[in-house]
């Protein structure tokens, strides 16, 4: 039975306040289950990174969480809403329960501190009772797991290659054995070979350590291979959510379809590449109704007037998937 570990409910994020506010994430409801890899895909500006920052309350100003809750279920004990934690509780929650691997692999490490300093300070902050030797042993063990030899502990970030730095970041993200790891385009800055190596390692580590991953990327082909479920985001909303295989073979939202047709699949039969016409919507002036309708090849009257809600598609009686689209057989 799947148990949830992180439940994002009706989550809203605005940039700015009042009339001028831009709604970057709107009414997102998403559940991450224990031990799964949930992929979150979408174009630039679809709000996927904002969602990640919002969930961990790391949004830089003027980002404001304007509504919703993020319920975290610890392995033992009662579930709690991350949004209501005090500053001190939030600090304890961060990294120990939910860690993040950021987009900028190159700049995520402080250039003036050794790798060891940056790994040990997080262990020290969360587990002060651990002896210094135990901390070092823990950090070394974790680096070994991600394929970095222990003697690299004393290296400075500029002495490591991009791939090594990202491995260090992943090792650092796992060092407290969190339940949830949010990965925000962790491999965008790396070449394809390094990308695969790191992801393969990640999948292996997940099996060993049992954490859940929220994997954010614009590279849908990558998600199809590595994730258990995929959620597609467009204009700040989730438009479709399904198991990877289902989404790949039988996508229901025209946008998902467009995304899938935008790049060659890594495996499977050949198919025509087409891309999506037009450009992502301007968040300051979202189209009425379904925000995808100006670019949608199958749009009809209803699409420009009413916003479709994310529901189990009427044509597929499958509780594991949902879609927000007015086309027949989808949202009722």
């Amino acid at each position, binding site marked *: 039975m799947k148990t949830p570990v992180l439940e994002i409910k009706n989550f809203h994020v605005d940039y700015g306040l009042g009339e001028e506010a831009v709604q970057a994430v709107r009414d997102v409801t998403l559940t991450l289950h224990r031990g799964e890899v949930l992929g979150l895909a979408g174009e630039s500006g679809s709000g996927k990174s904002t969602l990640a920052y919002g969930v*961990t309350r*790391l949004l*830089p100003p003027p980002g404001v969480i304007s509504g919703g809750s993020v319920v975290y279920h610890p392995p033992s004990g009662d579930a709690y809403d991350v949004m209501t934690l005090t500053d001190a509780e*939030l*600090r*304890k*929650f*961060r*990294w*120990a329960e939910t*860690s*993040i691997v*950021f*987009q*900028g692999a190159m*700049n*995520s*490490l*402080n*250039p*003036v*501190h*050794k790798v060891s300093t940056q790994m040990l*300070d*997080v262990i020290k*902050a*969360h587990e002060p009772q651990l002896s210094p030797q135990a901390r070092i042993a823990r950090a070394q063990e974790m680096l070994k797991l991600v394929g970095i030899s222990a003697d690299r502990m004393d*290296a*400075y970030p*500029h*002495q490591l290659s991009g791939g090594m730095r990202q491995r260090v*970041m992943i090792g*650092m993200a796992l060092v407290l054995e969190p339940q949830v790891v949010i990965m925000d385009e962790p491999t965008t800055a790396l070449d394809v070979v390094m990308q695969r190596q790191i992801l393969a390692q990640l999948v292996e580590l997940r099996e060993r350590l049992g954490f859940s991953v929220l994997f954010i990327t614009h590279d849908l082909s990558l998600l199809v291979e590595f994730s258990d479920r995929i959620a597609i985001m467009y204009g700040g909303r989730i438009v479709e959510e399904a198991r990877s295989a289902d989404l790949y073979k039988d996508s229901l939202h025209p946008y998902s379809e467009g995304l899938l047709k935008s790049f060659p699949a890594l495996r499977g039969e050949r198919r025509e590449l087409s891309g999506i016409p037009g450009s992502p919507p301007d968040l300051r002036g979202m189209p009425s109704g379904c925000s995808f309708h100006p670019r949608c090849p199958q749009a009809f009257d209803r699409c420009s007037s009413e916003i479709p809600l994310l529901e189990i598609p009427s044509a597929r009686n499958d509780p594991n998937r949902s879609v927000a689209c007015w086309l027949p057989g989808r949202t009722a």
Partner: protein
Amino acid sequence: MKFLLQRLTFYVFTAWAALTINFFIPRLIPGDPVTSLINKFQGQMSTDAINSLYVLFGLDKNASLWSQYVDYWGQVFRGDLGLSFTFFPTPVAEILRQSLPWTIALVGITTFASFMIGTSLGVLAGWRRGSIMDGLLPVTTFLSSIPYFWLGLLAITLLAGPDSFFPSSGGYEPGLVPSWNAEFIGSAVQHSLLPAVTILISSVSGWILTMRNMMVTVASEDYITVAHAKGLPERRVMVSYAARNALLPNVSGFALSLGFIVGGTLLVEIVFSYPGIGYNLFQAVGSKDYPLMQGVFLVITLSVLVANLLADVAYLLLDPRTRKEG
């Protein structure tokens, strides 16, 4: 280590060049120090005395420029900088030895204090952007735009006076003999308060502004977000992640300002008639005292060089990226 040796070679070369220029400049200036000394004694000197004065100043007309140059270097290494005219016949080295500690104590301590205070305030102002600390900014901009001498004169006019606690000039009570006793030190501190405070006021704002700006720049770096995401205590993120990195440009600025401690104090010491090296220079210029000027310039040049070397070393220690070998 190799890097350090390279820098060292560079500084030795620069020092050589500076000293050589220092040698030539007085010889290129129309008229010579001896003539002005003779004028001072108004013809009461014999020809022999005049000739020996030329030899004494290393300006022997019979010696070639090259042998003068060699002699000059010999003198520099012996610490012999010639005799001062103003305080004839006190050697320049002796005058500098007396005035240097005053300058270093007053300006050295205030520069250090100003750097520490300014940097700490800048860290806070940059970190708590949008809080009351921002109110500090217009004030500091205003203070940094006040010309120093005006601030000094204002301080003297308003605070110093015959009945005031703050003396308006000098380094210590005129009746006292310089020594390490409580009375003299107390008097020296009392005399240094007003110049110190005015230096502090006019220089601290520069540190605040640069440090704040660097903090704001660094605060948007990815590793700061990561540090927050790691759940580190706020203080640790501010000090060890943000301020530590923002400090780098300020440290080299600080090292450079150490070099200008000696040279940059002219106005302070003139306004407060403080017995430091800047005041020496002022007196030397007033009475065409070439050897003293040369000596002061030498000290200024060397201190700037040493400060630069310190800046290099400090940077090497603080920023691992500048170290070439692992």
